[in-house]
């Protein structure tokens, strides 16, 4: 790779020509025309032509793309943060990345764009690069934003739309109609019940829309741990007689805990119930199942999920600071445990996992109505 000014940026194993910023929270209005993280500023009307030039300058690269990945944020400084995330994501997920930073409080409508490419060595040989276009919009943006994004999608490739932060009216029916996958983090919402109403409307506008929620992804190892433990005939035998579920979570991740409870209830066929001690579940043959939710502000999003029967208990736990989740099944005179990796916490890792899994995420859709019911309890 040469030291050309078009904006190729190589991974750590090869030299790159622009210095990286050590601090990535520059305010949007201070982004220079040539920005180490975002590449070079180009007129919006000639973005595709400028991208084409990028590839012409060096024939030793492969332009790879399996999807359009739009990252939307209204947070100041998010463009530069998200560019760093895309640099990591493109190691495993080739895409055309379109970053959108919005400042709707600026009265003057403006639109600026930067282009760059994130390059990584594949198998230590070939340089594989992914294009990135970054847009910064100010003022009233709804229509301009949508059309700007539509104009720069790679045709025929799926559109993954990662919405960061609170939902807003910009998530219109027309925008939703072209999205294949909407990535959200319901843990970041101030009013999850209201926001999930918007998600329901989006799903009605586009029945094929796949929702991927970071809050749900954070519980993956816990859910697969429970599922794996119930493969054991010992745990299976205990399933009809379960009488207690205990879950410990970080206060910022209540949605994750409630989603796990909703999932357990939906899959095991437990109905909602109310007892003197508060809300609870009831098994399909009438057995009361108590619920105990505890907060632990010093722990990970989920630190413990215990399911109890008289003789047998099944539990998945993650200690604060640990890099592993422990699965355990215990019955009279027998205890077996194993370790598995913890769920990721960074947004980039969560998105990477969601992209790796693909699929319809039908279990999430199945769990969602029950979860929304728990939200208002």
């Amino acid at each position, binding site marked *: 790779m040469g030291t050309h000014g078009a904006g190729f940026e190589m991974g750590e194993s090869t030299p790159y020509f622009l210095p990286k910023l050590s601090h990535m929270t520059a305010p949007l209005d201070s982004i220079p025309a040539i920005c180490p993280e975002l590449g070079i500023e180009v007129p919006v009307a000639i973005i595709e032509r400028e991208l084409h030039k990028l590839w012409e300058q060096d024939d030793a690269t*492969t332009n*790879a793309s*399996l999807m359009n990945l739009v990252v939307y944020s209204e947070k100041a400084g998010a463009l530069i943060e998200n560019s760093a995330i895309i640099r990591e994501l493109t*190691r*495993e*997920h*080739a895409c055309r990345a379109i970053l959108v930073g919005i400042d709707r409080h600026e009265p003057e409508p403006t639109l600026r764009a930067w282009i760059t490419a994130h390059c*990584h060595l*594949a*198998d230590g040989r*070939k340089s*594989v690069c992914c294009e990135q276009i970054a847009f910064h919009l100010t003022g009233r943006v709804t229509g301009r934003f949508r059309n700007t994004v539509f104009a720069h999608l790679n045709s025929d490739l799926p559109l993954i739309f990662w919405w960061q932060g609170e939902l807003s009216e910009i998530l219109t029916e027309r925008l939703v109609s072209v999205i294949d996958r909407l990535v959200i983090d319901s843990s970041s919402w101030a009013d999850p019940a209201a926001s999930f109403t918007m998600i329901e409307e989006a799903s009605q506008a586009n029945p094929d829309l796949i929702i991927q929620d970071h809050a749900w992804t954070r519980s993956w*190892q816990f*859910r*697969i*741990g*429970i*599922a*794996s*433990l*119930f*493969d*054991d*005939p*010992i745990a*299976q035998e205990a*399933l009809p007689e379960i009488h207690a579920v205990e879950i410990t979570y970080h206060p910022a991740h209540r949605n994750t805990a409630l989603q796990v409870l909703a*999932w*357990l209830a939906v*899959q*095991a*066929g437990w109905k909602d119930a109310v007892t003197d001690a508060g809300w609870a579940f009831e098994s399909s043959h009438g057995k009361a199942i108590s619920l105990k939710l505890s907060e632990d502000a010093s722990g990970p999003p989920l630190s413990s999920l215990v399911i109890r029967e008289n003789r047998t208990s099944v539990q998945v736990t993650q200690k604060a600071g640990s*890099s*592993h*989740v422990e*699965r*355990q*099944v215990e*019955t009279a*005179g*027998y205890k*077996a*445990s*194993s*370790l*598995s*990796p913890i769920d990721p916490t960074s947004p980039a890792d969560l998105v990477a996992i969601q992209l*790796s899994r693909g*699929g319809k995420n*039908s*279990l999430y859709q199945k769990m969602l109505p029950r979860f929304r019911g728990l939200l208002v309890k």
Partner: protein
Amino acid sequence: MNPFREDLVSRSRPEPCSIVIFGATGDLTHRKLIPALYNLAVDGELPTGVKIIGFARREKSDAEFRAGLDELNRKVSRSGHDDEIWDSFIQTVSYHTSEFTDPDGYRRLAEKLDAIDAERGGKGNRLFYIASAPEFFDEILIALKNAGLNEAKPGCWARVIVEKPFGTDLATAKHLNQVVNDTFHESDTYRIDHYLGKETAQNLMVLRFANSIFEPLWNSKYISHIQITCAENLGMEGGRGGYYEKSGALRDMVQNHLLQLLSLVAMEPPTDLSADGVRDEKVKVIRSLRQWDTREKVAKNVVRAQYTAGHIDGTAVPGYRQEDRVSPTSETEAYVAVRLLIDTWRWSGVPFYIRMGKRLPKKSTEISVHFKDAPCVLFNALSGGVPGGNVLVIRIQPDEGISLRMVSKIPGTSLRLEPVKMDFHYSTSFGKGSPEAYERLLLDAIAGDATLFARRDEVEEAWKFIDHIERAWHESDSPPVMAEFVAGSWGPKEADELLQQDGNAWRRL
């Protein structure tokens, strides 16, 4: 049924079990099996409560056995070596010293397994992995039966995985199948062919049956011929000559791996994705192979060869007969090319060519589907015609991927055509590495999914085809010649002529 498994993992339910590995001190256990089980643990796929027992003749303590596994896992594990997970995993591993024929050794093994089961209220599943040298397969199976270890306890299962080679000819394969089936039910028998666990091999069915554009073209109307190549640049390093002298390229690779690939390429769509649904269709392909059952047919359709001294990557390498542990008068083939015909409606008249060789220029396994030329009008009527037809290449290893060659106009005012290539690489499109074949296959066996394992009839039909060729080579009064090629070249000229008789040529890799 486990209600919590829905949508998390698509495969069947992997239950806790005791895994007994026969041949535990061998290379396969250290380099493949234990790292595969460890990586399953890392991915959270190995059921909690699995116990692993290494069974071998050499005296060792648990600690010595574990130390050896630790040392190699650090070098070869796909996902690296996480000390905390390893420490937890290795606690489940123990060592059992016994001769393969010693009834007392099996009695002690049974006691050990019963003790493990006792912790679980007397219940326990068992998976026996026979990874020993093939001459012990019979004895191990018979000893397992005599010790009653082949019988599952009520509500539990007992399964066996048998490594290749599954026999050395049809008679020995039938015998081994009989011994296996006298010991375990066929539904509990898993004959492993690690090629079927490779990501690209699994993708073959997806490519064919999940894309509507290929299947309509996948027949004799549009396909000229299909080539399956397995090229290796290595020779008989590391003492492999001793084993190879007894097997040869045909039995070592063609009978199992390459015929399995052939069956995946040529089979009809299965009625479902169940193990028998898929294997029913695969075996029909092998059964439909036209048999080369005379010396003349073998001479016309099969080429065998040995390499002479040459150079690979600039390094001088010896000829086959000069290799370590190879007889100077060896009649074992280190290269084989076979022309096959499948007598089905779909493939009538379409030749399939399989070639496998040692000391070829590079390591590569691929399937190439060569489509017929476009009709001879328009561009084909131009001087020079169209430069080559469409070729779909499925690369199995290394650099797994798929490419499609097609013809394009060269930019300019004149009408000139050149072939261009659309290329898909797993490594660039999906940065995440694929699991090792053994990981997938071990988990499938634990979960009771035999789709990627060979069934008895598949193995026997394959041997039936191979036996005719072996007999012509070794039992005929005037056997077909053993051709020669220089190490580092793409095989003997006789192999080129094999395709030339049909107007075809080997694809240049």
